[in-house]
Protein backbone atom coordinates (compact mmCIF):
# COMPACT_ATOMS: atom_id res chain seq x y z
CA UNK A 1 0.00 0.00 0.00
CA UNK A 2 2.84 2.37 0.85
CA UNK A 3 4.40 1.71 -2.49
CA UNK A 4 1.09 2.22 -4.26
CA UNK A 5 0.78 5.63 -2.59
CA UNK A 6 4.18 6.81 -3.75
CA UNK A 7 3.39 5.61 -7.24
CA UNK A 8 0.26 7.70 -7.28
CA UNK A 9 2.21 10.72 -6.05
CA UNK A 10 4.73 10.28 -8.85
CA UNK A 11 2.01 9.89 -11.40
CA UNK A 12 0.11 12.99 -10.37
CA UNK A 13 3.32 15.03 -10.30
CA UNK A 14 4.11 14.01 -13.86
CA UNK A 15 0.55 14.53 -15.06
CA UNK A 16 0.42 18.02 -13.53
CA UNK A 17 3.71 19.00 -15.16
CA UNK A 18 2.74 17.49 -18.49
CA UNK A 19 -0.62 19.23 -18.59
CA UNK A 20 1.07 22.50 -17.61
CA UNK A 21 3.44 22.19 -20.54
CA UNK A 22 0.70 21.12 -22.93
CA UNK A 23 -1.60 23.97 -21.87
CA UNK A 24 0.97 26.52 -22.90
CA UNK A 25 1.97 24.70 -26.07
CA UNK A 26 1.28 26.80 -29.08
CA UNK A 27 -0.26 29.63 -27.07
CA UNK A 28 2.72 31.95 -27.06
CA UNK A 29 1.54 35.27 -28.40
CA UNK A 30 3.65 37.67 -30.44
CA UNK A 31 1.46 40.72 -29.86
CA UNK A 32 3.70 42.56 -27.40
CA UNK A 33 7.05 41.02 -28.27
CA UNK A 34 7.86 44.14 -30.28
CA UNK A 35 7.52 46.26 -27.12
CA UNK A 36 9.37 43.69 -25.00
CA UNK A 37 12.35 43.77 -27.35
CA UNK A 38 12.55 47.54 -27.20
CA UNK A 39 11.13 48.51 -30.58
CA UNK A 40 12.77 49.15 -33.93
CA UNK A 41 15.85 50.67 -32.31
CA UNK A 42 16.67 47.38 -30.58
CA UNK A 43 15.81 45.31 -33.66
CA UNK A 44 18.26 47.45 -35.63
CA UNK A 45 20.93 46.75 -33.02
CA UNK A 46 20.29 42.99 -33.27
CA UNK A 47 20.45 43.05 -37.07
CA UNK A 48 23.70 45.05 -37.04
CA UNK A 49 25.29 42.51 -34.69
CA UNK A 50 23.83 39.69 -36.83
CA UNK A 51 25.51 41.10 -39.95
CA UNK A 52 28.77 41.26 -38.01
CA UNK A 53 28.35 37.65 -36.86
CA UNK A 54 27.75 36.56 -40.47
CA UNK A 55 30.86 38.41 -41.62
CA UNK A 56 32.94 36.38 -39.19
CA UNK A 57 31.39 33.03 -40.15
CA UNK A 58 33.02 31.83 -43.41
CA UNK A 59 30.39 29.13 -44.00
CA UNK A 60 27.46 31.54 -43.77
CA UNK A 61 29.24 34.54 -45.26
CA UNK A 62 29.60 32.53 -48.47
CA UNK A 63 25.84 32.92 -49.00
CA UNK A 64 26.08 36.69 -48.67
CA UNK A 65 29.20 37.45 -50.69
CA UNK A 66 27.24 38.94 -53.56
CA UNK A 67 24.49 40.51 -51.47
CA UNK A 68 23.79 44.21 -51.10
CA UNK A 69 24.41 44.54 -47.35
CA UNK A 70 22.49 47.82 -46.98
CA UNK A 71 19.41 46.34 -48.63
CA UNK A 72 19.71 43.13 -46.58
CA UNK A 73 19.96 45.21 -43.39
CA UNK A 74 16.91 47.32 -44.22
CA UNK A 75 14.72 44.37 -45.24
CA UNK A 76 15.85 42.20 -42.33
CA UNK A 77 14.91 44.93 -39.83
CA UNK A 78 11.50 45.28 -41.49
CA UNK A 79 10.99 41.53 -41.55
CA UNK A 80 11.88 40.87 -37.91
CA UNK A 81 9.71 43.83 -36.88
CA UNK A 82 6.84 42.49 -38.99
CA UNK A 83 7.19 38.92 -37.66
CA UNK A 84 6.98 40.03 -34.03
CA UNK A 85 3.87 42.09 -34.80
CA UNK A 86 5.59 45.46 -34.78
CA UNK A 87 4.26 48.46 -36.74
CA UNK A 88 6.36 47.72 -39.85
CA UNK A 89 5.53 46.68 -43.34
CA UNK A 90 7.84 44.16 -44.93
CA UNK A 91 8.63 45.45 -48.40
CA UNK A 92 11.14 42.79 -49.44
CA UNK A 93 10.71 39.66 -51.54
CA UNK A 94 9.10 36.52 -50.11
CA UNK A 95 11.37 34.21 -48.14
CA UNK A 96 10.92 31.58 -50.84
CA UNK A 97 12.01 34.00 -53.61
CA UNK A 98 14.98 35.26 -51.60
CA UNK A 99 16.30 31.77 -50.84
CA UNK A 100 15.49 29.90 -54.05
CA UNK A 101 18.73 28.77 -55.68
CA UNK A 102 20.74 29.32 -52.48
CA UNK A 103 20.25 25.69 -51.44
CA UNK A 104 20.48 26.45 -47.72
CA UNK A 105 20.80 23.15 -45.90
CA UNK A 106 19.61 22.34 -42.39
CA UNK A 107 23.07 22.56 -40.81
CA UNK A 108 23.66 26.05 -42.24
CA UNK A 109 20.17 27.17 -41.27
CA UNK A 110 20.75 26.09 -37.67
CA UNK A 111 24.20 27.66 -37.64
CA UNK A 112 22.62 30.92 -38.78
CA UNK A 113 20.13 30.66 -35.92
CA UNK A 114 23.11 30.28 -33.56
CA UNK A 115 24.58 33.48 -35.05
CA UNK A 116 21.26 35.28 -34.60
CA UNK A 117 21.18 34.14 -30.95
CA UNK A 118 24.73 35.51 -30.51
CA UNK A 119 23.51 38.81 -31.98
CA UNK A 120 20.59 38.92 -29.54
CA UNK A 121 22.95 38.11 -26.66
CA UNK A 122 25.23 40.96 -27.71
CA UNK A 123 22.24 43.31 -27.94
CA UNK A 124 21.36 42.37 -24.36
CA UNK A 125 17.98 40.79 -25.18
CA UNK A 126 16.57 38.77 -22.28
CA UNK A 127 16.45 34.98 -22.71
CA UNK A 128 12.65 34.78 -22.57
CA UNK A 129 12.26 37.56 -25.16
CA UNK A 130 14.85 35.87 -27.39
CA UNK A 131 12.74 32.70 -27.41
CA UNK A 132 9.61 34.60 -28.41
CA UNK A 133 11.47 36.22 -31.30
CA UNK A 134 12.86 32.82 -32.36
CA UNK A 135 9.37 31.34 -32.17
CA UNK A 136 8.02 34.06 -34.46
CA UNK A 137 10.89 33.58 -36.93
CA UNK A 138 10.84 29.75 -36.81
CA UNK A 139 7.74 29.67 -39.02
CA UNK A 140 9.82 30.87 -41.97
CA UNK A 141 12.20 27.89 -41.82
CA UNK A 142 10.28 25.79 -44.35
CA UNK A 143 10.37 28.75 -46.77
CA UNK A 144 14.16 29.01 -46.43
CA UNK A 145 15.82 25.58 -46.43
CA UNK A 146 16.42 23.25 -49.38
CA UNK A 147 15.29 25.81 -51.99
Amino acid at each position, binding site marked *: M*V*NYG*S*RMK*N*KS*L*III*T*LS*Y*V*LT*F*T*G*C*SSTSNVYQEVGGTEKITEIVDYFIEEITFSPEIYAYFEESDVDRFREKMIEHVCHLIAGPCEYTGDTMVDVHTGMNV*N*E*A*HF*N*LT*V*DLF*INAMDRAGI*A*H*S*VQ*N*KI*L*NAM*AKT*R*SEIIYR
Partner: protein
Amino acid sequence: MRLQKYLSAIACTYFISISLCHAGDGKLIATAGLIQIEGSGGGGIVPWATLAGYDSQEQISLSAVSSTVDLDDYRLNVIGVNASFYDRLEVGYAQQRFDLKTLGGDIKQSITSLKYRLYGDVVYSTWPQVSVGMQYKRIDDGAIAELVGAKNTNHGTDWFVAMTKVNLGAIAGYNSVWNLTLRATKANEMGLLGFGGPNNDAYKMQIEASAGILLSRHLAVGVEYRQKPDNLGLDESDWADIFVSYIPNKSFNLTLAWTDLGKIAASEEQQGLYLSLNGQLW
Protein backbone atom coordinates in the same frame (compact mmCIF):
# COMPACT_ATOMS: atom_id res chain seq x y z
CA MET B 1 34.33 30.25 -19.83
CA ARG B 2 37.27 28.54 -18.17
CA LEU B 3 34.95 26.01 -16.54
CA GLN B 4 33.24 25.31 -19.86
CA LYS B 5 36.55 24.78 -21.60
CA TYR B 6 37.74 22.57 -18.79
CA LEU B 7 34.62 20.42 -18.86
CA SER B 8 34.60 19.98 -22.60
CA ALA B 9 38.29 19.16 -22.50
CA ILE B 10 37.53 16.42 -19.99
CA ALA B 11 34.72 15.13 -22.18
CA CYS B 12 36.95 14.96 -25.22
CA THR B 13 40.04 13.45 -23.68
CA TYR B 14 37.93 11.12 -21.61
CA PHE B 15 36.55 9.63 -24.81
CA ILE B 16 39.17 9.04 -27.49
CA SER B 17 40.52 12.30 -28.96
CA ILE B 18 40.37 16.10 -28.94
CA SER B 19 40.62 16.40 -32.69
CA LEU B 20 37.16 14.85 -33.10
CA CYS B 21 35.25 17.54 -31.24
CA HIS B 22 33.88 19.77 -33.97
CA ALA B 23 31.48 17.90 -36.23
CA GLY B 24 27.75 17.29 -36.09
CA ASP B 25 26.86 20.60 -34.46
CA GLY B 26 23.85 21.49 -36.61
CA LYS B 27 21.12 21.67 -33.97
CA LEU B 28 20.21 24.27 -31.40
CA ILE B 29 22.07 23.84 -28.15
CA ALA B 30 20.21 21.80 -25.52
CA THR B 31 17.90 20.19 -28.10
CA ALA B 32 19.91 16.98 -28.49
CA GLY B 33 19.17 15.62 -25.02
CA LEU B 34 21.08 12.76 -23.46
CA ILE B 35 21.78 9.08 -23.89
CA GLN B 36 19.34 7.36 -21.53
CA ILE B 37 20.21 4.41 -19.28
CA GLU B 38 19.57 1.83 -22.03
CA GLY B 39 21.74 3.61 -24.59
CA SER B 40 19.09 5.32 -26.73
CA GLY B 41 18.93 9.07 -27.24
CA GLY B 42 16.47 10.47 -24.76
CA GLY B 43 16.12 11.78 -21.30
CA GLY B 44 17.48 9.88 -18.34
CA ILE B 45 15.19 6.85 -18.08
CA VAL B 46 12.96 7.36 -21.14
CA PRO B 47 13.96 7.05 -24.82
CA TRP B 48 12.84 10.11 -26.82
CA ALA B 49 12.09 10.69 -30.49
CA THR B 50 15.23 12.84 -30.70
CA LEU B 51 18.52 11.29 -31.75
CA ALA B 52 21.44 11.43 -29.32
CA GLY B 53 23.71 13.71 -31.35
CA TYR B 54 23.64 17.27 -32.66
CA ASP B 55 23.79 16.05 -36.27
CA SER B 56 21.55 17.67 -38.85
CA GLN B 57 20.45 16.06 -42.12
CA GLU B 58 23.94 16.46 -43.60
CA GLN B 59 25.91 15.28 -40.58
CA ILE B 60 26.95 12.24 -38.57
CA SER B 61 27.64 12.34 -34.86
CA LEU B 62 29.11 10.02 -32.28
CA SER B 63 28.36 10.38 -28.58
CA ALA B 64 29.33 8.57 -25.40
CA VAL B 65 27.81 8.36 -21.96
CA SER B 66 28.70 7.29 -18.48
CA SER B 67 25.89 7.15 -15.91
CA THR B 68 25.45 5.97 -12.36
CA VAL B 69 22.26 5.55 -10.39
CA ASP B 70 23.15 5.04 -6.75
CA LEU B 71 20.21 3.56 -4.83
CA ASP B 72 19.89 2.41 -1.23
CA ASP B 73 20.53 -1.29 -1.94
CA TYR B 74 21.69 -1.23 -5.56
CA ARG B 75 23.87 0.74 -7.95
CA LEU B 76 23.36 0.87 -11.71
CA ASN B 77 26.41 1.72 -13.83
CA VAL B 78 25.96 2.42 -17.51
CA ILE B 79 28.53 3.07 -20.18
CA GLY B 80 27.49 3.49 -23.75
CA VAL B 81 28.16 4.85 -27.21
CA ASN B 82 25.66 6.10 -29.73
CA ALA B 83 26.07 7.06 -33.36
CA SER B 84 23.46 9.04 -35.24
CA PHE B 85 23.37 9.37 -39.00
CA TYR B 86 21.89 12.37 -40.81
CA ASP B 87 19.40 13.03 -37.99
CA ARG B 88 17.60 9.95 -39.28
CA LEU B 89 19.02 6.74 -37.83
CA GLU B 90 20.56 6.10 -34.46
CA VAL B 91 22.57 3.05 -33.37
CA GLY B 92 23.43 2.60 -29.72
CA TYR B 93 25.32 0.14 -27.59
CA ALA B 94 25.31 0.19 -23.80
CA GLN B 95 26.63 -2.00 -21.03
CA GLN B 96 24.88 -2.02 -17.70
CA ARG B 97 26.30 -3.35 -14.48
CA PHE B 98 23.82 -3.57 -11.64
CA ASP B 99 25.65 -3.87 -8.32
CA LEU B 100 23.82 -5.65 -5.54
CA LYS B 101 25.22 -3.55 -2.73
CA THR B 102 23.68 -5.42 0.18
CA LEU B 103 23.61 -8.95 -1.28
CA GLY B 104 26.97 -8.78 -3.06
CA GLY B 105 27.67 -9.55 -6.71
CA ASP B 106 26.22 -7.92 -9.82
CA ILE B 107 24.08 -8.44 -12.91
CA LYS B 108 25.45 -7.43 -16.30
CA GLN B 109 23.40 -6.65 -19.37
CA SER B 110 24.31 -5.35 -22.81
CA ILE B 111 21.83 -3.46 -24.98
CA THR B 112 22.01 -2.83 -28.68
CA SER B 113 19.51 -0.25 -29.85
CA LEU B 114 18.19 1.24 -33.06
CA LYS B 115 16.02 4.27 -33.65
CA TYR B 116 14.57 5.68 -36.84
CA ARG B 117 13.09 9.14 -37.14
CA LEU B 118 9.80 8.92 -39.03
CA TYR B 119 8.65 12.53 -39.01
CA GLY B 120 9.43 16.04 -38.01
CA ASP B 121 11.94 18.25 -36.32
CA VAL B 122 11.70 18.54 -32.56
CA VAL B 123 11.95 22.34 -32.73
CA TYR B 124 10.64 23.42 -36.12
CA SER B 125 7.86 21.11 -37.29
CA THR B 126 4.25 21.91 -36.37
CA TRP B 127 3.69 18.42 -35.00
CA PRO B 128 6.08 16.61 -32.66
CA GLN B 129 9.07 14.69 -33.94
CA VAL B 130 8.14 10.99 -34.14
CA SER B 131 10.54 8.04 -34.06
CA VAL B 132 10.33 4.27 -33.72
CA GLY B 133 12.97 2.17 -32.04
CA MET B 134 14.04 -1.12 -30.52
CA GLN B 135 16.38 -2.24 -27.78
CA TYR B 136 17.84 -5.74 -27.88
CA LYS B 137 18.90 -6.76 -24.38
CA ARG B 138 21.14 -9.65 -23.45
CA ILE B 139 21.92 -10.71 -19.88
CA ASP B 140 25.42 -12.03 -19.15
CA ASP B 141 24.41 -14.49 -16.49
CA GLY B 142 20.74 -15.36 -16.01
CA ALA B 143 21.13 -16.99 -12.57
CA ILE B 144 19.36 -14.21 -10.66
CA ALA B 145 16.66 -13.83 -13.33
CA GLU B 146 16.01 -17.57 -12.97
CA LEU B 147 15.94 -17.29 -9.19
CA VAL B 148 13.16 -14.67 -9.30
CA GLY B 149 11.15 -16.72 -11.78
CA ALA B 150 11.73 -15.03 -15.16
CA LYS B 151 10.53 -17.05 -18.17
CA ASN B 152 13.41 -15.94 -20.38
CA THR B 153 16.72 -15.53 -18.54
CA ASN B 154 18.81 -14.75 -21.59
CA HIS B 155 17.54 -12.00 -23.86
CA GLY B 156 14.57 -9.84 -24.86
CA THR B 157 13.62 -7.03 -27.20
CA ASP B 158 11.71 -3.84 -26.43
CA TRP B 159 9.92 -1.87 -29.16
CA PHE B 160 8.89 1.73 -28.84
CA VAL B 161 7.39 4.72 -30.58
CA ALA B 162 8.21 8.16 -29.18
CA MET B 163 7.08 11.70 -29.87
CA THR B 164 8.97 14.75 -28.66
CA LYS B 165 8.42 18.49 -29.04
CA VAL B 166 10.31 21.61 -28.06
CA ASN B 167 8.08 24.69 -27.94
CA LEU B 168 10.01 27.93 -28.27
CA GLY B 169 9.12 30.50 -25.65
CA ALA B 170 6.09 28.46 -24.60
CA ILE B 171 6.16 28.97 -20.83
CA ALA B 172 6.61 32.64 -19.91
CA GLY B 173 9.19 32.90 -22.68
CA TYR B 174 11.08 29.77 -21.66
CA ASN B 175 11.43 26.87 -24.08
CA SER B 176 9.61 23.73 -23.01
CA VAL B 177 10.18 20.13 -24.01
CA TRP B 178 7.82 17.21 -23.66
CA ASN B 179 8.03 13.59 -24.69
CA LEU B 180 5.62 10.69 -24.79
CA THR B 181 6.80 7.13 -25.40
CA LEU B 182 4.82 3.95 -25.87
CA ARG B 183 6.90 0.84 -25.22
CA ALA B 184 6.08 -2.82 -25.81
CA THR B 185 8.17 -4.89 -23.41
CA LYS B 186 8.48 -8.15 -21.51
CA ALA B 187 11.43 -6.93 -19.46
CA ASN B 188 11.57 -7.23 -15.68
CA GLU B 189 13.39 -4.26 -14.15
CA MET B 190 14.50 -3.17 -17.63
CA GLY B 191 15.75 -6.71 -18.39
CA LEU B 192 18.14 -7.04 -15.46
CA LEU B 193 15.76 -9.62 -13.94
CA GLY B 194 15.03 -11.32 -17.25
CA PHE B 195 11.92 -11.28 -19.41
CA GLY B 196 8.40 -12.47 -18.63
CA GLY B 197 7.37 -14.37 -15.52
CA PRO B 198 4.66 -16.31 -13.73
CA ASN B 199 2.28 -13.31 -13.74
CA ASN B 200 2.61 -12.52 -17.43
CA ASP B 201 4.75 -13.65 -20.35
CA ALA B 202 3.31 -11.48 -23.14
CA TYR B 203 4.36 -8.07 -24.44
CA LYS B 204 2.77 -5.26 -22.47
CA MET B 205 2.29 -1.69 -23.62
CA GLN B 206 3.79 0.80 -21.20
CA ILE B 207 3.59 4.59 -21.15
CA GLU B 208 6.62 6.75 -20.49
CA ALA B 209 6.69 10.52 -20.37
CA SER B 210 9.03 13.45 -19.81
CA ALA B 211 8.49 17.17 -19.46
CA GLY B 212 11.03 19.90 -18.97
CA ILE B 213 11.77 23.59 -19.11
CA LEU B 214 14.95 25.13 -20.52
CA LEU B 215 15.79 27.87 -18.04
CA SER B 216 18.57 29.15 -20.27
CA ARG B 217 20.55 27.84 -23.28
CA HIS B 218 22.63 25.90 -20.76
CA LEU B 219 20.26 24.71 -18.07
CA ALA B 220 17.22 22.43 -18.22
CA VAL B 221 15.03 21.02 -15.45
CA GLY B 222 12.25 18.47 -15.70
CA VAL B 223 10.53 15.28 -14.64
CA GLU B 224 10.22 11.80 -16.08
CA TYR B 225 7.93 8.87 -15.55
CA ARG B 226 8.20 5.29 -16.73
CA GLN B 227 5.50 2.69 -16.33
CA LYS B 228 6.71 -0.92 -15.86
CA PRO B 229 4.98 -4.30 -16.02
CA ASP B 230 4.86 -6.70 -13.07
CA ASN B 231 5.54 -9.99 -14.81
CA LEU B 232 7.26 -11.60 -11.84
CA GLY B 233 4.52 -10.81 -9.32
CA LEU B 234 7.08 -9.01 -7.15
CA ASP B 235 5.12 -5.76 -7.15
CA GLU B 236 7.56 -4.10 -9.57
CA SER B 237 7.32 -0.29 -9.34
CA ASP B 238 6.98 2.39 -11.98
CA TRP B 239 9.97 4.73 -12.14
CA ALA B 240 10.17 8.49 -11.83
CA ASP B 241 12.84 11.15 -11.61
CA ILE B 242 13.35 14.89 -11.34
CA PHE B 243 16.38 16.15 -13.24
CA VAL B 244 18.57 19.16 -13.80
CA SER B 245 20.83 19.20 -16.83
CA TYR B 246 23.79 21.51 -17.38
CA ILE B 247 24.79 21.96 -21.03
CA PRO B 248 27.90 24.20 -21.20
CA ASN B 249 28.32 23.52 -24.93
CA LYS B 250 27.37 21.05 -27.65
CA SER B 251 30.22 18.69 -26.74
CA PHE B 252 29.28 18.00 -23.18
CA ASN B 253 26.47 17.83 -20.70
CA LEU B 254 26.11 16.84 -17.11
CA THR B 255 22.80 15.67 -15.67
CA LEU B 256 21.88 15.14 -12.06
CA ALA B 257 18.57 13.58 -11.04
CA TRP B 258 16.73 12.37 -8.00
CA THR B 259 15.27 9.00 -8.91
CA ASP B 260 12.53 6.99 -7.27
CA LEU B 261 12.71 3.42 -8.55
CA GLY B 262 10.36 2.05 -5.89
CA LYS B 263 10.45 -1.64 -5.10
CA ILE B 264 13.17 -3.66 -6.84
CA ALA B 265 13.03 -7.43 -6.13
CA ALA B 266 12.65 -7.68 -2.33
CA SER B 267 13.96 -4.18 -1.55
CA GLU B 268 11.41 -1.45 -0.93
CA GLU B 269 11.67 2.29 -1.63
CA GLN B 270 14.80 2.40 -3.71
CA GLN B 271 15.67 6.04 -4.21
CA GLY B 272 18.89 7.77 -5.03
CA LEU B 273 20.97 10.08 -7.12
CA TYR B 274 21.49 9.71 -10.86
CA LEU B 275 24.56 11.28 -12.38
CA SER B 276 25.18 11.24 -16.11
CA LEU B 277 28.09 12.59 -18.17
CA ASN B 278 27.36 12.85 -21.88
CA GLY B 279 29.96 13.79 -24.44
CA GLN B 280 29.72 14.25 -28.17
CA LEU B 281 32.94 13.16 -29.83
CA TRP B 282 32.11 13.93 -33.42
